[in-house]
């Protein structure tokens, strides 16, 4: 399959600086990540809160400036492109946010919201824009009359559709979906997922789908990457990860997911890992997961495992797996 994006050893560190510009601490939100995304596929990214999923996604589309590493987009390193030359890529790479409230300006009408990216990339007349927007709204399951309403007049699911319409307004190839369903009610989530899937089919989109709901990620993704504290600890085929996790963290994660299938209901009396997620301000030495890992050895404590590929393309960063 054709690779759309290849990420190589990408790092994003946030520096806390004082008034004089001195560093006062580093948050290693993304700390050396390597993976590929194929054209037309959905790459799911899971991990607990604060592990750097959003940061990774946003650095990938150059919403954040990468600290180091390469982001090859169709063979071109967009990490090396100057900020003011990025427009070309931003037209191809769009984003859908988690919070359908804070991602839409409450002072603007739906039309103005969706027209915003269009007017940056294309010179269109007002009527052309109106037409385009009407079409987009229909595509995401809204009425073209909704154009003149304000975002606060919509429900969460509808708002998320507006966000999707905005992302699609410039005909991107790649869309970063940063937890697009986490803030939605269960009965609404499916609507949005369906819209996303339909659009992928119709437009051949590639998604990076960030979420912590593993059930959903499993459902929508071809591949899944599992992140822990700024690193990807396991990448693999969606079913592989879901049914046959190799990394102890992935295992714990999968086990911790509450499910309604009778046979897979969370076994509370076992399989629950202990301990809290450490802060990215203070990453443990060695394997990042070792303080919580039931199988940690001496080696895990001092040496950091790298992702290893096995025969079927499944990658794990664990000495023991």
């Amino acid at each position, binding site marked *: 399959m054709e690779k759309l994006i290849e990420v190589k050893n990408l790092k994003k560190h946030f520096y806390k600086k004082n008034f004089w510009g001195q560093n006062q601490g580093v948050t290693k939100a993304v700390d050396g990540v390597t993976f590929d995304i194929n054209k037309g596929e959905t790459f799911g990214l899971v991990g607990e809160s604060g592990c750097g999923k959003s940061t990774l996604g946003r650095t990938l589309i150059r919403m954040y400036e990468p600290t180091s590493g390469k982001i090859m987009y169709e063979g071109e390193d967009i990490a090396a492109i100057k900020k003011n030359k990025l427009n070309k890529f931003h037209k191809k790479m769009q984003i859908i946010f988690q919070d359908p409230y804070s*991602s839409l300006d409450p002072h603007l009408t739906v039309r*103005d919201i969706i027209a*915003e990216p269009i007017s940056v990339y294309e010179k269109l007349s007002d009527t052309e824009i109106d037409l385009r927007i009407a079409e987009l709204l229909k595509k995401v399951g809204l009425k073209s009359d909704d154009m003149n309403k*304000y975002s606060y007049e919509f429900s969460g699911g509808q708002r998320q559709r507006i966000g999707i319409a905005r992302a699609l307004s410039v005909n991107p190839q790649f869309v970063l979906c940063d937890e697009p369903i986490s803030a939605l009610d269960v009965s609404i989530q499916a609507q949005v997922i369906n819209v996303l899937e339909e659009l992928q089919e119709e437009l051949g989109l590639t998604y990076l789908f960030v979420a912590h709901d593993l059930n959903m990620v499993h459902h929508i993704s071809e591949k899944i990457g599992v992140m822990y504290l700024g690193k990807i600890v396991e990448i693999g085929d969606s079913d592989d990860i879901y049914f046959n996790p190799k990394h102890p963290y992935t295992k714990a994660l999968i086990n911790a997911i509450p499910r309604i299938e009778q046979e897979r209901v969370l076994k509370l009396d076992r399989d629950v890992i202990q301990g809290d997620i450490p802060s990215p301000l203070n990453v443990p030495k060695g394997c990042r997961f070792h303080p919580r890992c039931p199988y940690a050895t001496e080696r895990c404590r001092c040496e950091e495992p790298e992702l290893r590929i096995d025969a079927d393309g499944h990658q794990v960063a664990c000495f023991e797996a």
Partner: protein
Amino acid sequence: MNYKKQLSRKKRDKIFELLLKDKASLISVIFLLALILVSVAAPFLPLDGSKTDILHMLESPSSVHWFGTDEVGRDYFARTINGGRISLTVGILAMLMSTVIGITVGMLAGFSGGIVDGVLMRIVDVIQSIPWLVLVTVISIFFKKGLLSIIVVIGFFSWMEIARLVRAEVLSLREREYIQYASFAGVKSFIIIVKHLIPAVMPTIIVSASSGIADAIMTESALSFLGIGIQEPLSSWGKLLQTAQSNLQNALYMAMIPGVLIILTIFAFNKIGNVLRVYWEPRVSEV
């Protein structure tokens, strides 16, 4: 587009609803409108507040002089009206000035962040460190006296609070995803500021602008009271109060009238600020 009309009607209804809900706001609006009307009309009315008349000095209110005359025989009613005019002018213009500066600095600091933010905020710190009355008083002596200087002095040294508020708000707005998206999408900073940030900080601005008017009126009164405010023959309410001070014994009303007017005006501006803020908040229109 019909929808837009409907929307504007909805908004109009909203403001009436807000006003009717709170009697004090309604009265404030009516009072201020009347005040503004009178102030605007004052030059066209047969009211000469500077005509001295040494034959009729310090007279009590009468049918000729509704509020009596002052110590050089000027009609106190005319002076009160003109005083209101000046006080309002000072209030509104100084507020505009401080608001514009405050928004600019606050936006710049909040939006640029980093060193620009640091430097600007340090400047704000420094200026704000000087007690305000002291600062305005000191600065006012460097300026040529006059209405304009008072406006400039007050306006120029009361923007720090707005700048701080705007900055704080912009800093948090910057984290909002719709702003992040706009800058991601390559929308020019200027447009982001105008289209997204300004409307979002508007409620804050409205409130501090309305209290800014009130503050400016108060400041002007205080300056006039200390004898470094508005110059003769212009009057302002503060100036009138200052002169009234020596006539408390024989003409208390000379102090009561401008005093009560100041209180009402300031109260009204604060009230209206709150109504406007509620009006501006987008979610309110939902109801």
